[in-house]
């Protein structure tokens, strides 16, 4: 009985195993299905190239690539932050790509200096405030939120989210560890309540008056305001006199053992092109990475801002240091 079960399983397994036909590119994606499928479908319509993809978290995807080694089916690794791409490159999972198209489409600070990965959309992490309780003129910088005048008025998302780790990593890059730790300790001292599990809940707390200001990604704000347009919430672009707003990327790199390296590069180039940039960024209210492409009208309405020009690779390089610093400072 058992062997019959086993053999039928193997037949079933074989039945669902893929058969190759036509050109295809295989993508391991930490960006979720509903954000990438429309873009991939458009690519298939335009070029006839099939894209097969599988989604998971970055950590498991990278381990999978590592375990599969030269046998990996994956041509491209797609993530939603720079830190993980940096780590993938660091572990030798990605191969450099020399593409003049990518170099002109993606600004230098939003791609790997070694050309192993490229940003495809920009995610800005900025200050959100309650318009009933705070005037924009009271706000200035991320660092200022550590000032005692914000005592009991600050809401933050958990330090376990990579977006906050990248933000603190960038602060370390700018100020060094000692000063950054003082800033983070200041934030923790100013917290109105324990850190939240996600940005949306944090922003709702700001709107409800549990606290007055918070730090969050703009697309969560966009999504929330689409659903509840009357919330007393607004975005503030901090550090405009200084280093600029902290930005991260969603981006991708060609895997070291890509079976269809040329196809993967073509897909990357297309994704960074004006044809695809709006499709890629707008579906999640993010900013296009290509400077020639304008963001969606709803996103553009939040105004222009100066971005922090430090290379986002720093977010990966300093991520572990940032996490340890936040642990020391008691930022949960």
């Amino acid at each position: 009985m058992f062997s019959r079960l086993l053999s039928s399983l193997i037949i079933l397994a074989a039945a669902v195993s893929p058969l190759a036909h036509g050109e295809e590119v295989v993508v391991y994606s930490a960006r979720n299905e509903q954000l990438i499928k429309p873009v991939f479908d458009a690519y298939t319509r335009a070029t006839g190239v099939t894209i097969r993809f599988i989604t998971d978290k970055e950590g498991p995807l990278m381990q999978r690539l590592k375990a599969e080694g030269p046998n990996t089916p994956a041509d491209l690794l797609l993530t939603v932050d720079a830190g993980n791409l940096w780590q993938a490159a660091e572990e030798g999972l990605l191969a450099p790509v020399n593409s003049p198209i990518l170099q002109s489409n993606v600004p230098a600070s939003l791609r790997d200096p070694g050309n192993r990965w490229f940003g495809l959309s920009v995610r800005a992490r900025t200050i959100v405030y309650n318009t009933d309780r705070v005037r924009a003129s009271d706000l200035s910088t991320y660092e200022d939120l550590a000032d005692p005048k914000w005592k009991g008025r600050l809401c933050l998302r958990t330090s376990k989210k990579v977006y906050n780790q990248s933000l603190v990593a960038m602060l370390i890059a700018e100020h060094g560890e000692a000063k950054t730790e003082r800033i983070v300790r200041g934030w923790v001292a100013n917290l109105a309540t324990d850190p939240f599990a996600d940005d949306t809940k944090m922003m709702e707390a700001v709107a409800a008056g549990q606290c007055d200001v918070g730090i969050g990604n703009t697309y969560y704000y966009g999504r929330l305001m689409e659903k509840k347009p009357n919330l007393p919430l607004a975005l503030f672009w901090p550090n405009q006199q200084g280093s600029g707003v902290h930005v991260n990327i969603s981006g991708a790199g060609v895997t070291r053992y890509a079976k269809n390296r040329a196809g993967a590069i073509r897909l990357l180039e297309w994704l960074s092109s004006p044809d695809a940039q709006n499709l890629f960024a707008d579906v999640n209210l993010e900013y296009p990475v290509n400077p020639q492409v304008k963001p969606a009208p709803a996103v553009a309405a939040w105004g222009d801002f100066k971005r922090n020009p430090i290379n986002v690779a720093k977010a990966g390089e300093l991520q572990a240091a940032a996490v340890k610093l936040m642990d020391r400072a008691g930022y949960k």
Partner: protein
Amino acid sequence: MSAHALPERKAPSAAFAFFRERGRLSAWRLFTFTLCVLVAIPLLVVASSLLHPDRETWRHLADNVLPELIRHTLLLTLGVSVAAGILGTGLAWLTAVCDFPGRRFFSWSLMLPLALPAYVTGFVLVGLLDFTGPIATLLRQWFGPEVRLPPIRSGGGAALALTLALYPYVYLLARHAFLSQGKRALEVGQSLGLSRRQGFLRIALPLARPWIAGGVALVAMETLADFGTVAVFNYDTFTTGIYKAWYSLFSLPAAAQLASLLILFVFVVLFLEQRLRAGMRYTPTGRSAGRERLVLTGFGRLAAPLFCGAVLTVAFIVPVGQLLWWALGVAAQDLDLRYWAYLGRSLLLAGMAATLITATALLLAYARRQQRGALTDAMVRFATLGYAVPGAVLAIGIYLPIAWFDRLYIGLMGELFGREAGPLLAGTLLAMLSAYLVRFLAVAHEPLAAALQRITPSMDEAARSLGLCSRQLIQRVHLPLLKGGVVTAMILVFVDVMKEMPITLMTRPFGWDTLATRIFEMTSEGEWERAALPAVALLVAGLVPVILLTRQTER
């Protein structure tokens, strides 16, 4: 399969000797050993990380976060185990033994929270009871802006959510124990002057101990492995530390080492518990058919349905109501024909896994029965530890050997036949099902082991002295007694596989999305309301078999 391996002589010791003569004992031992080793490979892969300690990460964690994580974990696990144990056992006693208005309805409906992933219950609770939720907002409007509810994003909140989501494990097992333990012992107790409460505490409860202990063990393991629920409450536990080491500090070795400690801890605790009751005998006292229920009167008659109703409301009706509300809001946008495929795959995977895992667990339980002893106990215990390991870490432990095997196979094909072969295991259902087996063997093992404990050697002897052959023994004695355990095991595994996320994500073939992976897609960027749609679909798909099967066991 197990038929011809059963004792063919009267006394069990003689039977063992018989096996030895014919070499059959070693066959059982070989089977147990092979299975345990296969299932243990992923755990050993995880544990092998101990050979390469990442001292830097360790020092950081030990200095800054580990003491608190351990305290939180012990508190949470203890709290949830005790609360779910009491709640599950109490409800099981009420619906299995007592009689009160609505008992029939509650007896199956109290099982329903099983189909709700704990993190969903958690997310709904936070949404309702946090500062920004409707209840706190109303209270502030009525009684002034300073009014606060106790903080829900806390250890207490996490414990509440986990208890509400996990008590059905205990409920299901304890209920089965009470239903099948017969009433004669209780009657003897009553004739000796014990009150109802004393009868429960001193007779029924001790008799149900293997089942309750099995259920609580599952609850404790699930709590230890949980990441999603505690993340919703931002309550840091040992698992949080594991994922912090891996995802944030980029040190998978440190993560695996922490996980190994967790495995070791669970192993020791479970093994000790098992040894403690190793010497006990659990024999059903009288047939349960035709029994009379304890009819509740007075206060109890009113309180029992109220209590059951309250639990059902908080653990199931409220979360599901919220989910339905959200799902309706996004159905127009998200619901499409692909959902049939998600549903089909979820059901197919869960059905195949439930069959495979229950069958394996049954064989394992029989094997253990054939040769009692500390060594077998330890091997079986180790083979069922996969349930206590955080899912994503176990997924790596599973994927590494799969990838290793494929590499070997592809290399071999290249050398021998000079042709380029694809992977044989990775991305196949076989790999997925093996992974589920490693993860959920414990879930099937606990109810089956408890059920098998009831079938004592003396019963086999008695049956044989009446002239039953092995096949008849199985068909006429064992199967009827095991049926409830098998049904329980299948329900639990079925629902657990449907809810499972990290292993499904890691081992599924391309394009093989299921309802659980749909939930992942939505929640990974915080879109909880859109996640409600697959969650509701999963609920419906999981409930149908649960209700059908429980109806069957209902008496």
